Each structure stands twice: as C-alpha cells, then as structure tokens.
C-alpha cells in the first residue's frame, strides 16, 4: 500500500496542474487556431471559412510593418544585450574594487517593469522635454535627436530602452558563468603561455555555451512579449511605425472587433517563434546529450 502510494503520489500531485495547463494553454491555442479559419468578427463564429483571414492578413501593409519591427527589434535587442552584457561581465571579472556596488547598479534596471522603463525613456527621448532640449539649453542648438518622433527611427528607441533594461541581467548571467570556470584550467593556460585574449576566446567563452543558451532564451522571450514596452514608449506610433505583432493582434481583436484576423496574426506569431526556437533548442539539447 505504502509503496503504491509512493509510486502514484507524485503523479497525482502533478496531474491537476498538468490538466489545467493542458486546457488553458494548449486548449486555447487550439481554439485560436480554429478561430483563425472562420469569419469571426465582433463575436466568435464557428463556421469554417478556409484561409480567408490569412489572405486578408498578408494583404495588410500594417502587418508587414509589425513583422519587420519584430525582426529588427529582436535581432538588435538580443545581439546588443548579449554583446554588452558579455563585455560588462568581462570588465567586472577583472577583480575590480566595489564590484558589488557596480554590479547592483547595472542589474537595477531589471527591477523595473517595462511600463516604467518605457515611460521614463519616453520623457528622456522626447525632443521637447528630454535629451535634445537639455543639449539645446547647454548652447548646442544644432543638436538633433528626434528618433522618438521620426517614423523611420522610432523602432530603435524601443531597442535603446530594451537594452538599457536587460543588458545588466545578461551581464549577471555571464558573470556567474565566468566565475564558474575552473581556476585550474586557467592556471594551466597561463603556464602554457596563453595571453588574456587567447584565454577568453579559446577557453572561457566555449565553456560558457550553456550560459549563452539561457541568455538567448530569456532575451528572446522578452523581445517577443515586448508589448508593454512598445505601448508605454511609443504606443505603436508615430502612426503605426513601431507596431509589433503583439500590438497588431491586440488592436485587431479588441479595438476593431476582428477576432478572425487577430487570431490569424496570433497563429503566425506562434509559427514564427516555433520556427526559430525549436531548431535551436533541438541542436543545443542534442549536443548536451551526446
């Protein structure tokens, strides 16, 4: 009896959670996929209508803007955060004084929500209130920094705010990784006459491979759900120049009562994420199993 309980208890405890997530995550994904094949407008409609919503979606110029923005933002955000985080971590790893204090300062932005970050940067980057005005007041009246209100550059302000918030976090992860590299290996390398550059590129960085995976996954999911940052910083503007698939979907579902088109865009987002994440995870996990 006791043994039976022991064998089944873990499964019993986990199963409600499993059932709930099965329903609320995968159940709703299935529902959304189905809705994307209907003519649902103001209310869900369950008559199958084929690919009509996808045709409509791929004819909407705003959707292309949203997709381009997602790629521009994700690539820059992940790239810059990783590079900057790595760089800061290596600098901090040189046994500098007051390391604890500096680390805290870099990590602090992560404690803020994206809404706060977005609002603060909205004021900093606003040409009439923030940086541009300060420099003008200092006497440099030719200075122009109007990316926030320039439709071609506005998406980069989202990158700036995102990087400011998240590179400290990447730094902390890398720093932990750097510290976990075995000292004996480093000593051996030093005895063999390897300089700092060679030590980092040949020994330490290859050792950090699992850390790179964690950083990539964390930053990738932050960039995909960057809805709140965009809403607070630019609200999709100027015009819809900084629209992302998430804000596109919100706007179609809740502001325009076009549930079908919104569902189609949600399915496209899911497909995009799967297309990027699954091969990466697959290759990384296969390597570790080997």
């Amino acid at each position, binding site marked *: 009896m006791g043994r039976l309980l022991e064998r089944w208890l873990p499964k019993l405890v986990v199963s409600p959670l499993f059932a709930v997530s099965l329903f609320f995550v995968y159940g709703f994904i299935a529902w959304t996929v189905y809705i994307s094949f209907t003519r649902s407008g*103001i209310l869900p409609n369950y008559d199958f209508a084929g690919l*009509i919503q996808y045709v*409509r979606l791929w004819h909407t*110029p705003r959707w292309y803007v949203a997709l381009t923005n997602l790629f521009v933002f994700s690539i820059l955000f992940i790239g810059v955060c990783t590079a900057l985080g790595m760089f800061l971590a290596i600098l901090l790893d040189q046994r500098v004084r007051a390391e604890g204090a500096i680390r805290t300062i870099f990590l602090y932005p992560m404690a803020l929500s994206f809404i706060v970050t977005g609002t603060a940067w909205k004021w900093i980057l606003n040409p*009439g209130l923030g940086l541009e005005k300060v420099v003008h007041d200092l006497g440099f009246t030719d200075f122009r920094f109007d990316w926030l209100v320039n439709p071609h550059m506005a998406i980069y302000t989202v990158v700036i705010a995102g990087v400011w918030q998240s590179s400290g976090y990447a730094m902390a992860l890398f720093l932990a990784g750097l510290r976990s590299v075995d000292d004996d290996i480093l000593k051996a390398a030093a005895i063999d006459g390897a300089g700092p550059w060679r030590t980092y590129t040949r020994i330490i960085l290859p050792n950090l491979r699992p850390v790179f995976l964690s950083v990539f996954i964390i930053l990738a999911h932050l960039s995909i759900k960057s809805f709140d940052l965009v809403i607070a910083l630019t609200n999709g503007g100027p015009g819809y120049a900084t629209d992302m698939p998430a804000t596109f979907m919100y706007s179609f579902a809740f502001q325009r009562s076009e549930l079908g088109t919104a569902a189609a865009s949600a399915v496209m987002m899911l497909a995009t994420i799967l297309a990027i994440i699954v091969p990466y995870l697959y290759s990384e996990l296969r390597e570790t199993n080997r």
Partner: protein
Amino acid sequence: MMTFKNILAATVVAAFALPGIAKADGTVEVLHWWTSGGEAKAVGELKKAFEADGGKWVDSPIAGGGGDAAMTALRARVVSGNPPTAVQLKGPGIQEWAAQGALNDVQGVADKEHWDDVLPPVLANIMKYDGKYVAAPVNIHRVDWFWANPQVLAKVGVTEMPTTWDEFNTIADKLKAAGITPLAHGGQPWQDATLFEDVVLGVGGADFFRKALVELDQDALTSDTMIKSFDQLRKLRGYVDDNFSGRDWNLATAMVMRGDAGFQIMGDWAKGEFLAAGKVPGKDFVCAATPGKGFVLNSDSFTFFKVSGADKIEGQKVLASLIMSPSFQETFNLAKGSIPARTDVSLDKFDDCAKKSREDLLTAIKNDTLVPSMAHEMAVSRSVRGEFLDLVTTFFNSDMSSQDAVKDLAAAIQRAQQ
C-alpha cells in the same frame, strides 16, 4: 466547442454574479466606461434619477483603453448569455450587435414619447435596427470645431475666424512667420482622423463627405476631391509643431490656452478643458465651425441588450424613458459639455458655444448637411474605421503622396468590407 462555451459561461457568470436579487420597480445593470471627471459625474446623474424613480441600479464601470476593456467584458457576457441591461455603445456598433440578435427594442417607449419628433433623423436612424429603436442617445457632440486663442490671433492682426481652408492657410502662414505654432495637434491616430474628416467636409462639402466616408463609394474615395483633401491635410501637417507625436488631445488644448498655439481642431469635449481652467468663451477662447457649412455628429448612447425577466425588462423601459427625458438630457449635458440629443430641450443654462452648436445643428438638419463622424465611430464599422485610421495616420507621419494615399485607402476599404 460546446464544452468550452459552457465552461466559459460558468466562469463568467460566477465572476459577474450580481450581489442579491432585486424586486420592485425594475433593475438595470449599466456597463459603461465613464469613470473620470465630468463623465463620471454625468453618469452619476443618471443613476440618481433612476434610483429616485424607485429602481435598482447596478453600476458596472469598466475603465481602460477608451472602451476596449468594456467591449471585451461585454463580449464575454453576451457569449455566456448574461448581458447587462444597457451598455454605453454607439454608432454602427449598435447595428453589429443587433445583427447578432443580442438587442431588445424599446419601440413601445419611443412611440409613446414620440422620439421620432425630437431627434435629428440622422441620429434616429443610427439608434434603430429594422425600424425599431434599440438604443437611446444621451448627447450630441460636434466634431468640426476650431478652438482658437483670440489674443494670439490678434498678434498677427486676425480678428475673423476662417470660413474656408484657404483662409485658414493664410492665417496659419502668418502665425508661423510670427514664430507661433499655428495648429496644436496630438499625433494619435484618432486625432489625425479627426483632422482628416473635418478637412474632407471643408474641401468636398457634406454630400461628398457622405459618399466617401459613410457610403464608402469607391469613385468618391478615388476622386480628385479626395486627393485635394489629402493635399490640405499635408498642409496642416506643416502647421503642427515637431513634437506632436503621441500627445494627448487635452495637452494640445492647453497649448492654445497658454497662447503657444493659435488653433486646435477638436470636438467640443475640448470646451470642458477651457471651462475647467476658468476661461470664458468669446473672450479667452473662441469656438467656430471648421469650413464646409456642415455638422459632423458624434453622439453617445445607451444600447439595450436582450435581458429576460419582467423585472429587468421593466427596468430597461424605465431607463429608456429616463434617458430621453428633457430634464435628464439637460443635467447630463451640463456635466459633460455636449448638447442634448433632443432638439426641443431649452439651452438657457448652457454656454454660447453650446448655443451655436444647436443653432448650426438645426440649420444642418434643414439643409441636409448633418453627417455622422467617421473618426468617432458614428459612420462606419470598427473594422473599416480602423483602415481609415491606419492610412490617415501613415499619411500624416510620412511623405506619402496624395495620389498614393487615395489609391491605398480605396484598396484598404475594399479589403475591410470583404
């Protein structure tokens, strides 16, 4: 799929279960998003009046997103079969819900109180589905207003308000030369669309407005008049300061108030900002109609959903009658800054801008130049309106040519209507 619907229904019903069950003289549950300032006060007036009649009022305010959150809640409640009695819902949205079979009509009350005789016909048609009233309007907002600072205009020697866009351009050039921002504007899609529709009225007149923005006639949308309208919109873009992106409308109003800008083009909710700051119409600020000799109509209304039970239906009828009563229309609109939807309510207690609004409204009804607002969800469905907003705001924020704008607009409208 049925299981899902049932579970959703159960969840939603549980979440919204009403505290207690009322008896007596009717119960209404009113879903709205008037949660701040004059709006909250205005809806408080309705509650007070309803309770004075012995009814039971259940308030369901859902703030957020300019009504988007409330619409989401409404959708869930209608799907679950437990709709509120009345919802703050306007324009073609009324028809969309009616087409889903989700509304009750209040034609009995309307017949008895002769609503047809006191409402502008354009507005009455929006309130009806299949010839029967399913909603009751509480107010009339006018969208095509200039709000100007007379002291600023006097600096460049202007005393008369412009009556054509060419006159406006001349004045604006003078202001610009004097180093004053001619037009205070906030770069949000709905504000861009407000400028656009006022420009269309001024350039093409009321008949053209109706063909293009209400009937969505492809020939009108691609016509030279539409190209000219975009040309004028491009001119307005030049009269806006560099920092307009994302600015809220009330901040633009404050620019006019402070004298930083000459004009704002905005509906008469802007008046509330001036009055709240203690400004006097005619002296500290001037209101005048934008060109076109028309009247762009925006109106809030309560729509009656399909509730069951004698108690609730009784409450619905009492509420309908109350909303349309002259005394309520007066108190509500004094609090909100609009004018009564009924054209027979005396405006003795209202300010001069409101009186001008009524006067122009009656002229517009007589000359058939009263048009429903596209930008404020009175003319076309939310999906079509969304396409207008996307295109107009892209045009305003880029260097797109008027010809391209017209072409893209016509294509986008066609797509949304499929």
